[in-house]
């Protein structure tokens, strides 16, 4: 006897599911408008000590020591680009895992899982609204921080955005794998806090990785994010890059395909294991 299902999945239904997930998250986000304010001002608060610290290292407003590493003494533009990219990295990298954790805590994960929609699609859907809100809050943040500290990109914004895309798409792979780990371990905070500090540190969000102690540089060079941040800065600020920019772009594109495949495999394996154990609804 053939099993029949009432659902008739098609491209249209999948897109509708994505839209519904994004609309739900959009509503939830704007129910707490203070979060948006916090998203704008938190990064500014974190980089303010760096701004004043940079002044203590500068002569006539020029950070010459910094320029020797990067080719540009404009350390605040350098850091602001790192901060904006970090906002997106955090959204993609950790957003899916956090979203699953929230669904677990609210007790809706199991019922969502029963819907005839691809699970990876559910994960991607959870990032759509946050990508949009991150774009809005990052632009507002950049305008305010630019007025306070100065932001002077001299290169091509379009080329920089194009370069950032494979990096962010590749990060979805990391996000899938992390979401799987959250399903298994049911706890995300410590992993996210420690992990994001380490990833940000080693990939050089606030400083050029060349300035790291020599024994930490190999770790940094193993992270594809390092090349993404480096290439975007090279294109926007014309800073010295670790490798020629086309080579860095090739690395990012290769990273995108490899990570998407590996991340999806890890997620599916863990998800199957969790369903076998029957622990999907536990938190």
């Amino acid at each position, binding site marked *: 006897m053939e099993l029949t299902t009432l659902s008739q999945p098609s491209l249209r239904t999948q897109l509708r599911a994505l839209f519904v997930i994004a609309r739900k998250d959009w509503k939830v986000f704007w129910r707490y408008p203070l979060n948006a304010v916090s998203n704008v001002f938190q990064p500014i608060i974190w980089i303010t*000590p760096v701004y004043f610290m940079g002044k203590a*290292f500068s002569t006539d407003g020029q950070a010459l020591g910094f320029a020797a590493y990067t080719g540009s003494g404009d350390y605040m533009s350098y850091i602001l680009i790192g901060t904006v990219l970090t906002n997106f990295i955090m959204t993609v990298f950790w957003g899916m895992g956090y979203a699953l954790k929230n669904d677990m805590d609210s007790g809706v994960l199991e019922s969502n899982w029963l819907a005839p929609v691809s699970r990876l699609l559910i994960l991607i859907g959870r990032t759509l609204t946050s990508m949009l809100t991150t774009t809005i809050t990052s632009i507002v943040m950049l305008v305010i921080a630019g007025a306070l500290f100065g932001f002077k990109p001299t290169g091509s914004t379009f080329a920089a955005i194009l370069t950032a895309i494979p990096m962010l798409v590749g990060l979805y792979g990391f996000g899938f794998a992390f979401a799987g780990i959250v399903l298994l371990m049911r706890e995300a905070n410590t992993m996210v806090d420690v992990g994001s500090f380490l990833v940000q540190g080693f990939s050089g969000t606030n400083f050029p990785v060349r300035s790291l102690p020599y024994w930490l540089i190999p770790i940094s060079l193993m992270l594809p994010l390092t090349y993404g941040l480096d290439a975007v800065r090279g294109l926007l600020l014309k800073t010295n890059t670790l490798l020629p920019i086309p080579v860095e772009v090739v690395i990012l594109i290769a990273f995108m395909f490899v990570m998407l495949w590996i991340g999806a495999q890890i997620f599916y394996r863990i998800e199957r294991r969790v369903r076998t154990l029957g622990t999907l609804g536990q938190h």
Partner: protein
Amino acid sequence: METSLIPRSLGQPGLLSDIRAFLAVVRREWTIFTRYPSWIIALFIWPLIFPMMYILTARALSGPDESGLAVFIATTGATDYIGYIIVGTTVWMWQNIVLWDVGFALRNEQMRGTLESNWLSPTWRFSYLLGQTGPQIVSMAMFIGVTALEFGILFGVRLNGNPWMIGLMMLAAIPAIYGLGFAFASLVITVKEANTFVFLIRGMVMIFCGITFPVAILPAWMQSFAKWLPQTYLIHGMRAAAFSNAGVNELLPDLIPLLSFGGFWLIVGYFTFLWMERRARKTGAIGQY
């Protein structure tokens, strides 16, 4: 036969019972603290990775030939930029942890549903809040000790000053830091979700108190504002005690305002608590969440 209409309580409050209640809260908090072993990871990881972000940025600003470092030394008078940053970031972390731990102490009880029943017991209610500080101070002392140890071993940071003077500065800071925590805890009970307020207070410390730079580098209006924050004096005094071998006389300009702010915040904290307690009983908000 006469019947007394005055309600009589079985509780017999006194100094001894207040101390016993305080110690019971301390013991409970210590038991909870040691039940979750993840604090060991936090104890060793956080003192290292939070200052590292600023230290590595400072390293980049120094340049490969350390030309930037010469400018920093001329500006701050500090030869050890790592130690300079560690003192500032440790004070920030101390205030941040107190806001989350002590500041949310009553709120956590409210969320667990135990605040109302505790409130009904014939004990000194302030002891619920005060009792949280004991284990918190012990864990913070461990945190600061681990910070000194890790940076001493990994980065060769050495204290040139008198450890007793560093201890004196920290002791003098306790009333201000925890007084602020008490006031905050009382407000949290009233406004419930207060994460944004934590971000605001810790953000002010981060921007105005000079955690990674000398306050003198700030614009004049920011310097004026910084003078109203006790953490400014704590960071300045700790740096002087740790790296300039300052004695009591040199530390007095920091100790006096620090203790004055401490007295102020303890009084504000206590009276905010009393106000909140009365208000919560009147409105019945104590059990709501």
